């Protein structure tokens, strides 16, 4: 999903399509990791939000598990379950609470500050999802193969930031400095992931 505009690029001729591959310490592809690129250490301006993002509550689960949205995006929280949910987040990026809304009720929340927003349901502890409000236009999450690709990334030095809800690092993120030179460069980043929290509390 390309959401970045190239308008800001000073020399489009010097751009490349880059791929970042995130793998765990054991070498397994790490999915649902959010990779953000900061060419020359600076964020790429994000396009104005043109659409409404959505995290659905279905089968007493959030879907998707990780959602990347640009700053200023609106995210809807449609409830497709027969039960009520109480979606909340205490994140510094966005603190909100959608108290006990029922099926087919749709609530939209505006995210105007960058940062991870963990989501939970106060009724169902097992429900967990994350919204990463990205402050750079080059920001996307890995697929099942652990890869994510970006087109037209300006050549030169770039800071690659990898975030994952379970990444074992402060703020759940690591940053890698990289020089984009070739036409289709691939950056492999290894991260240590925590095991996901248990589905049901042990206590």
């Amino acid at each position, binding site marked *: 999903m390309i959401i970045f505009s190239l308008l800001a690029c000073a020399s489009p001729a010097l751009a490349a399509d880059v791929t970042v591959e995130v793998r765990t310490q054991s070498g397994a592809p790490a999915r649902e990791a959010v990779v953000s690129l900061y060419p020359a250490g600076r964020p790429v301006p994000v396009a104005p939000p043109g659409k409404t993002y959505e995290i659905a509550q279905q089968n007493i689960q959030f879907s998707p598990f990780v959602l990347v949205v640009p700053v200023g995006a609106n995210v809807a929280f449609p409830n497709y379950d027969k039960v009520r949910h109480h979606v909340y987040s205490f994140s510094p990026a966005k*603190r909100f609470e959608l108290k006990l809304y029922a099926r087919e009720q749709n609530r939209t929340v505006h995210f105007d500050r960058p940062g991870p927003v963990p989501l*939970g349901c106060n009724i169902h502890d097992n429900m967990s999802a994350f919204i990463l409000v990205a402050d750079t236009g080059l920001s996307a999450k890995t697929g099942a193969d652990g890869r994510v690709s970006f087109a037209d990334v300006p050549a030169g030095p770039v800071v690659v930031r990898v975030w994952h809800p379970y990444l074992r690092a*402060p703020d759940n993120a690591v940053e890698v400095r990289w020089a984009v030179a070739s036409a289709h460069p691939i950056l492999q980043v290894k991260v240590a992931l925590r095991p996901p929290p248990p589905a049901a509390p042990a206590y």
Partner: protein
Amino acid sequence: MFRRIRTRLAVLYAGLFAAALCLVAASLYFVLGATVERQVRSELVASSTVFDRIWKVRAHELGSAAAVLARDFGFRAAIATGDRRTAESALDNLKRRLGLDVAFIVGTDGRVTGIADPRLAADAARLWPALDQGETRGVATLGGVPRQLVAAPVMAPALTGWVVFASDLDQRQMRGLESLSAIPISASVLPAGRVADPAIRAGVPGRLSTPDGMAIALARPLQAFGGGDGAVLLLRYPMARAMAAYLPLQIATALTGLLGLILVIGGSWRLSLSITRPISALDLAARRMEQGESVAVEVATDDEIGRLARSFNAMAAGIAERERRITELAFNDSLTGLPNRAFFRRHLDIELRQAAHRGRSLVLLSLDLDNFKAINDTLGHPTGDALLREVAARLKTAVGEALVARLGGDEFTVVAAPERGDGGAERTAQRLMGAFAEPFRIDGHELAVAASIGIAVAPHDGADSDTLLKNADLALYRAKEAGRGTYRFFEARMNAEAQARRILETDLRRALGAGELELHFQPLVALETGRIASFEALLRWNHPTRGLVPPLEFIPVAEETGLIVPIGAWVIQEACRHARDWPSDVRVAVNVSSVQFRRSAVGTAVVQALAATGLAPDRLELEITESIFLETSDATLSALHGLREMGVRIALDDFGTGYSSLSYLQSFPFDKIKIDRSFVDRLETGEGAGAIVQAITALAAALGMETTAEGIETEAQRDAVRRLGCGLGQGYLFSRPVDAVRARALLESACAISRAA
């Protein structure tokens, strides 16, 4: 070691029992110890599983609480929004509710919330890696105190940190655990390294030395929070406390043992007493017997000791009986049953001391039968003994209370305590004389026996028994001299006479060697022819200071002292020497006393004298008196026969006096009979004398014996005896005794005498 058997027995039994008791006590202690230890071990294992469960329940409880808190929306909101104050107050609230010591939050960024103490906070911050690794429970040291930790992640909704509850594993906590245990276990949490014994650390109960003594211990490893050695829960059960349960049993055993010991000591004491009491009694009795007491022990039982006691009694009785008999023999005269000399001496000593002590006098009477020898010889010893027994009986009756003793032979003595001075002594003597008033009838003989008595009175006549007895004897001697059948008191004069006799004796010993003795001769004249037929040798002692000592004075002394033997020998020798120079038809006559015969000195002296002088044996005539037959034995008689066979003539001197008996004439073939001068004296006055002399001469003629009349002083007497049949005469009419020179002169003037006849 122990001088008494009963102590030894009691100690032995008590010692054995005590040893056995100690063995029982030791076995009991070890068996008890092993049992208790086994019991404690199994209880420890059981308790440790209980503790495990308690531990887990506690952890679960805390974990639940932590989880609930971690899920609490408000709490999560407070944490997520950084509302520390709200979060801390929530922690405090929960701490109070759950009785927690420490509760805090560790953020995913490592920040610690809820702890004021910086040291504690630093310890808490170090938990982060473990928390991050997902550790939720275990033991960790916070602020130097081992604590049970339980952590719960705070999902807000993503993991923002961990709620950590820490429960102190302090004494209070441990006591709580202990109170849940079935047995009084002491529990403590220690770093695992502090338990040295690997077996105990591995969870096997074992012995552990503690400051409070030996204990059975079991360690349960406690999971460490975040790895490391961790800690152990050490469960201890002090042996002392385990054994305490058996203390009553031990005390009971000890008391029973003590009681048993006392019973054994008492019992063995009693038993040994029952054994040793009779032995002690025997011991005591033996010692009393040793001291001369008469003893008998009680025979209480029929066992060996009883038999021993019986034997002992028999032995003691035997000893007493023998002792009595020995005493009797020692102090009694077996013939008369009277006390003997030994007893008398002891009795006299005692009586003298008592009399001296009381200031009283004591009378000692020495009694001697007159002529007892004659009775013994003529009637035989059995008769003599019977007489002595009868005399003893009469004396005892006569004196009553006083002591009568027989000193030997016919000597008796009486010790009497007179009531009123010497008068009493005299009465006693008279009573004793009275005992002889009636004749004694012995074996059909009627014997008139008299006694002489000498009396000495203590302390006047002697304070000691020797002096008193000697003086009584002196008095007796005097009584005898005074003519028998009477009594004499001791007088100091008697003592002086005795002294004089001793001096005489000393002088007499000297006299023989000093030539003070001399023989005088008195002729015996044939009445028909007027010729001197023989001379009778008569001994004279010319004492250098006292002059001529009469023979009557010194001959008894010589006889008593035995000096008569050398003197007698000298006389025979001297007489023979003189006779050798006389005409061969003139004999010499020598007086020989019974003492000389008793000492068997006559034969030897005669043989030596005849050999030395060469005198014909028939010229020697030995004159003996009748008394020789009273006092001498068969040996004397055979000696006389021997002499006569040798050819020596034997004449019977002084015939007709004293106990003259015709049986003497029959018992020995005398050559000559010398008729006593008393008959010659009475020839002119008494009618009977002539008849007796005539009878004697007739008898002598019939027996082939010569006769000599002694003591012829007048011609009428000479004519009378010649007419009555006497062959020879001796007396002043013919010549007084003269010395040897004059004797020769007499022989030479024999014609003159013849003429005178």
